[in-house]
C-alpha cells in the first residue's frame, strides 16, 4: 500500500493546512450547506438555527430575498417569487410549459431555448436565480465558519443531463464558489450511509425529492463506491403529488377554468400541507378563501391520497426494476435500501419501496440532510484534508450520448451506465469533393429518433483540407469528465489539422453569456477584483512550482536526461520570477510555459507510477 502513496503526485508534495470546504445540496424545494468540523459532518443553520433554506427567490424593485421570507411572499406576489427554479435549469421554454402548464411566471418569449423570466424591474435566467440560492448558502457558511471557502461539492440528481449539470455548475461559479465536483445526489447519500455503517455489498438508493426522482444501485467495497446503474426521471417528484391533490381539490369543488395566480398558489400550498399532514394522520381538512373571499373547505383521507399517487409511485418502481436489470442484479442481492428526499416521508412510498425490495428501507439519517452530509464528506477529501483517504467514487453516465445520422436517427457513441470519466472517438468522412466543413449534432437519451432525444449541441467542423469525397478522416472525440460533463474535440487525421469547433449549446447559456454574467457580478462585487485575480494567479504559480519541483526531486533523475531536467528547471526560474511580480498575463504565460516544458515528464510519471504500483502488486501476491 505504501507504493500507492508515492504515486499520488498532486497530493504528496506539500504539508497540509486544513482548508474549508462545504457540500451543498441545491434542492428543488429546499437547499442545505454542510461541512466537516472536528471530524463531524454536519449541516449549518442560519441565525435562527434553521438548516433548510427554502429554494425560493423573490425579486422586489431594489432587493433580492432568498429562503423563508421569500417563501412567505410566494402567495402574495407569485409572479415575482421564483419557486423550484431547479426544474427550469437547462430546459427550453417549451419543455417548461409542457411539464408545468400552470406556472404563475411571466416568461420572455424572445429566446425560447434559453428562457428568461420577467420579474420586477429586470429579467433573470434560471442560472442567475439558482446562483442567488447558492450565494445565500455560501454567505451562511462563511459567516458560521468565519473564513472564506476553498471549495464546494454541489449535488445534482443522478439523472440530470449535460445541459442541467452545466447550468448547475455555472450557477455555482456565478455564486463565487470554486466547484470541486458535481456529485450525484444518490451517490452522496450512499457516502453518508456507507461510511456510517461501514458495510460492504450492494445498496440501492431511492431518492424522491421535490422535483426529481433517482434510483442508483451501488457496490461498496474497501472504500470504493462503484455506481453500477442509475435511472430515474428528472421531472417527477413530491411537487407532482401536490399537483394531483390540487387536481382532486378542483374536481371536488368544481373549480374549473383558469385559476387566478393567487388561488393557484394557495391551492398548491394547501395541497402540500395536506400531503405532509397525511404522513401522520388518517385524514385532513383544509380550508381557504376563493377569489370572491368565500371560504371553501374540503377533507381528504389518506386512502384517497394514496389512490391519487399510486401511478406516480408505480412509475418510480418501474425505474427501480430497470436499474436492477442494468446492474445485472436480482432484488435479493440488494443488501440495503436507503431512502433520500423529503417525499420519502410519505408512508405509502416507504411501504411500496419496502414491498418491492422485500426489506424495510433505511431512514436513520434525516432524508432532507443526508445528501448535503455526503457531499461535505467528499468535499473534505477533495480539498486535501485527508490525503491518505482510501475513499473513491466511481460514477456513471446517466443517459446515452449519441450523434445524429442520416434520416434523423441517433447513433449512440457512449452508452448509459458507462463508468465516467470516459472518452470515445468516432470517425467521419466527407461526402462531397472539396468539402471543408461538416455539421455535427450531439444528442442525449435512449430513444432512436433525434426528435425523441435531448439536443445538447450542434457544431460545425471547419478548416478540413479540401480532398476527394471520402478521403478526409475526421476523428471526433467525446470526453465525459467526472462531473458527467461533455467535452468535444475534433481532428482531421491524414493532415493532422485540428478542426475548429464552435459548440453552441442547444439549451441554456453559451460560454460568452456566462462570462458576461461573471463580469457583471464582479463589477457589482465589493473589493478589488483585480487584486483578487492576481492573488489567485500567484497562488496557482506557487502551486505549480512547488509540485513540479517535488516531482523533479522524486523522479527527475530516473525518467529524464540532464538536458530535459535543465529545460524544466529554466521554466521554473521564469515561473518563480513571474510569480513574485504583479503582471497577471506574465504569470499565466509562465504557468503554461512550465506546463508545456513538463508535459512529457508528467505523462511519463503517470505511466511510471502505474507500472511501479502494478509491479508491486505482482510481488505482493507472490
Amino acid at each position, binding site marked *: 500500500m505504501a507504493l500507492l502513496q508515492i*504515486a499520488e503526485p498532486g497530493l504528496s508534495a506539500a504539508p497540509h493546512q486544513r482548508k474549508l470546504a462545504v457540500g451543498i445540496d441545491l434542492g428543488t424545494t429546499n437547499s442545505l450547506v454542510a461541512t466537516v468540523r472536528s471530524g463531524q459532518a454536519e449541516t449549518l443553520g442560519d441565525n435562527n438555527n434553521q438548516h433548510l433554506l427554502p429554494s425560493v427567490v423573490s425579486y422586489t424593485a431594489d432587493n433580492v430575498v432568498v429562503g423563508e421570507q421569500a417563501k412567505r411572499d410566494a402567495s402574495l406576489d407569485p409572479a415575482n417569487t421564483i419557486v423550484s427554479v431547479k426544474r427550469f435549469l437547462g430546459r427550453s421554454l417549451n419543455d417548461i410549459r409542457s411539464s408545468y402548464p400552470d406556472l404563475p411566471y411571466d416568461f420572455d418569449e424572445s429566446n425560447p431555448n434559453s428562457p428568461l423570466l420577467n420579474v420586477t424591474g429586470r429579467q433573470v435566467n434560471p442560472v442567475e436565480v439558482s446562483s442567488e440560492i447558492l450565494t445565500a448558502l455560501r454567505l451562511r457558511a462563511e459567516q458560521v465558519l468565519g473564513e472564506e471557502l476553498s471549495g464546494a461539492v454541489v449535488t445534482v440528481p443522478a439523472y440530470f443531463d449535460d445541459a442541467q449539470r452545466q447550468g448547475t455548475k455555472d450557477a455555482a461559479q456565478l455564486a463565487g464558489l470554486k466547484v470541486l465536483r458535481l456529485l450525484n445526489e444518490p451517490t452522496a447519500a450512499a457516502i453518508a450511509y456507507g461510511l456510517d455503517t461501514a458495510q460492504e455489498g450492494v445498496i440501492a438508493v431511492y431518492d424522491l425529492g421535490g422535483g426529481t426522482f433517482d434510483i442508483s444501485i451501488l457496490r461498496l467495497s*474497501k472504500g470504493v463506491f462503484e455506481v453500477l446503474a442509475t435511472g430515474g426521471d428528472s421531472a417527477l417528484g413530491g411537487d407532482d403529488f401536490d399537483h394531483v391533490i390540487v387536481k382532486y381539490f378542483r374536481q371536488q369543488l368544481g373549480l374549473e377554468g383558469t385559476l387566478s395566480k393567487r388561488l393557484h398558489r394557495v391551492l398548491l400550498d394547501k395541497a402540500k400541507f395536506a400531503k405532509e399532514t397525511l404522513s401522520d394522520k388518517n385524514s385532513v381538512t383544509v380550508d381557504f378563501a376563493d377569489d370572491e373571499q368565500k371560504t371553501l373547505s374540503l377533507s381528504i383521507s389518506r386512502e384517497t391520497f394514496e389512490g391519487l399517487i399510486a401511478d406516480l409511485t408505480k412509475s418510480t418502481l418501474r425505474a427501480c426494476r430497470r436499474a436492477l436489470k442494468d446492474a445485472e442484479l436480482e432484488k435479493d442481492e440488494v443488501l440495503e435500501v436507503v431512502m433520500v428526499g423529503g417525499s420519502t416521508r410519505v408512508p405509502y412510498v416507504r411501504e411500496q419501496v419496502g414491498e418491492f425490495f422485500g426489506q424495510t428501507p433505511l431512514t436513520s439519517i434525516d432524508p432532507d440532510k443526508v445528501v448535503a452530509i455526503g457531499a461535505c464528506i467528499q468535499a473534505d477529501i477533495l*480539498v486535501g484534508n485527508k490525503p491518505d483517504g482510501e475513499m*473513491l467514487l466511481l460514477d456513471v453516465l446517466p443517459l446515452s450520448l449519441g450523434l445524429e445520422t442520416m434520416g434523423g436517427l441517433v447513433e449512440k457513441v457512449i452508452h448509459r451506465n458507462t463508468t465516467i470519466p470516459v472518452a*470515445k472517438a468516432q470517425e467521419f468522412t466527407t461526402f462531397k469533393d472539396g468539402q471543408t466543413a461538416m455539421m455535427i449534432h450531439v444528442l442525449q437519451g435512449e430513444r432512436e429518433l433525434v426528435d425523441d432525444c435531448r439536443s445538447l449541441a450542434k457544431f460545425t467542423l471547419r478548416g478540413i483540407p479540401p480532398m476527394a469525397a471520402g478521403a478526409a478522416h475526421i476523428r471526433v472525440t467525446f470526453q465525459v469528465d467526472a462531473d458527467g460533463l461533455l467535452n468535444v474535440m475534433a481532428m482531421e487525421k491524414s493532415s493532422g489539422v485540428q478542426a475548429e469547433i464552435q459548440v453552441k449549446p442547444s439549451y441554456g447559456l453559451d460560454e460568452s453569456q456566462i462570462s458576461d454574467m461573471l463580469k457583471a457580478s464582479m463589477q457589482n462585487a465589493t473589493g478589488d477584483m483585480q487584486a483578487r485575480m492576481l492573488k489567485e494567479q500567484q497562488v496557482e504559480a506557487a502551486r505549480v512550482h512547488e*509540485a513540479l519541483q517535488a516531482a523533479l526531486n522524486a523522479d527527475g533523475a530516473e525518467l529524464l536526461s540532464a538536458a530535459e531536467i535543465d529545460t524544466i528547471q529554466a521554466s521554473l526560474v521564469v515561473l518563480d520570477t513571474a510569480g513574485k511580480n504583479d503582471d497577471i498575463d506574465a504569470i499565466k504565460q509562465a504557468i503554461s510555459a512550465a*506546463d508545456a516544458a513538463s508535459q512529457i515528464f*508528467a505523462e511519463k510519471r503517470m505511466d511510471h507510477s502505474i507500472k511501479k*504500483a502494478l*509491479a508491486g502488486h505482482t510481488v505482493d501476491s507472490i
Partner: protein
Amino acid sequence: MNYFALFNLTPSFDVDKATLAATYQQLQKLTHPDKFATASERDKLIALQKNAQVNDGYQVLKTPLSRAEHMLELRGVELQHEQKTMQDGAFLMQQMEWREQLDEAQHASDPLEALESLDDEVAADIKRLLSELGAFLEQSDEAANENAANLVRKLKFLFKLRHEIEIKEDALSDF
C-alpha cells in the same frame, strides 16, 4: 493502446476476473481525477485521459467478445469498421429461423416462455462459439486468426439477437 499491458496482463482469452477487478480498482486509485483535485489543471487533464483509458480497458477486457476483438486488433486483424458479408449459409439459415421465432413469440400462448426458451437456445450457442473462439485465439497463425475473426462476426449477430429478445421480454413484463 494495448489494454493487456495497461492492466499488466499477458494477452490471453482466459482472464481471471478477480485479478482483473483488483487491478482495475488499483488503477482507479492511481488515476481517478478525484485523486488530483488539488493538482494543477494540466495534471488533472492527464489523469482524466488516463482514467478514461482505464475505464475503457476494463470494459474491453471484462467482456469476452470485446476482449477477443481487442486481441485480434493487437494482431493486426481489424474488425471494428469492416463491411463484410457473412458467407456461412448454414449460420444464416439458423439466424433466419430464430428471427422468425422471435417475431412469432408474441402470438404464442405464453409469449414470455416462448422468448425464454429461444433465449436459452441462443445462449447455448453463444457458449459453444465462445469456447471455439478461445481455442483459435490460443494459436496465433493467420488461419486461426481468420477463424477467430469469423466467430467474432457470428457472435456479434447472436449478442444482437439476444438483446432484441431482451427488449421484447421487457415490453411484455411492463417496463
